């Protein structure tokens, strides 16, 4: 099980803040492809990703139990 978190416009576009996915090991890119397929959110391609609250790269591996957050360009401050 992987927990996916969506924020800001990604959350609004999908209507979901949290998605639970039955999935095994995969890369960030593979997870993106699954979600783009399922929810049609093409923007996932361009956004930052965090695995368990650490920024991650496309080739990083996701383990079952991980929380993966998709982070649109930040605009705090």
């Amino acid at each position: 099980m992987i927990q996916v978190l969506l924020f800001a416009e990604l959350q609004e576009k999908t209507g979901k803040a949290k998605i639970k996915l039955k999935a095994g090991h995969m890369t960030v890119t593979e997870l993106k492809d699954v979600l783009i397929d399922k929810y049609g959110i093409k923007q996932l391609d361009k956004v930052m990703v965090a695995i368990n609250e650490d920024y991650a790269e496309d080739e990083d591996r996701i383990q079952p139990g991980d929380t993966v957050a998709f982070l649109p360009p930040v605009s705090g401050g």
Partner: protein
Amino acid sequence: MENHLFEIVEEPIQIEKVIAKVVRREAGAITTFIGTVREWTKGRRTLYLKYEAYVSMAEKMLRQVGEEVCGKWPDVKIAITHRIGELQISDTAVVVAVSAPHRKEAYAANEYAMERIKQIVPIWKKEHWEDGEMWIGNQSETVSYAEGKPIIKGDKH
């Protein structure tokens, strides 16, 4: 580093309380940055803003900003509070307070912290105008993202 130095809050920020966190007998200089909601941006009138955060990660990234600052300027103490939720014009969104023995480093550390907050802390701003609304960030409205992905690793020089 004390945890409560870096906070995401929903209620109004009390500036004096953030400053009080960095007051020290060995400090002769305190700088604060107060980010407020601006009414006009590029000719467009903002009615109000909404800030959203990935709260747990945002506090973690604020701590990282603090660690980077203390790595570069070992004599400073820094506290950061960022507010989320709905904010009106002139409301305070963020306060960065830095104390240091001397003023040069207090200014430099504060400005560096703000740069990094805008790059790596997962907080999002939605502007509400008279004629619409938009999540700010991927429309090149912010400088940091116009250059692509945020620089995650601190500048270590």
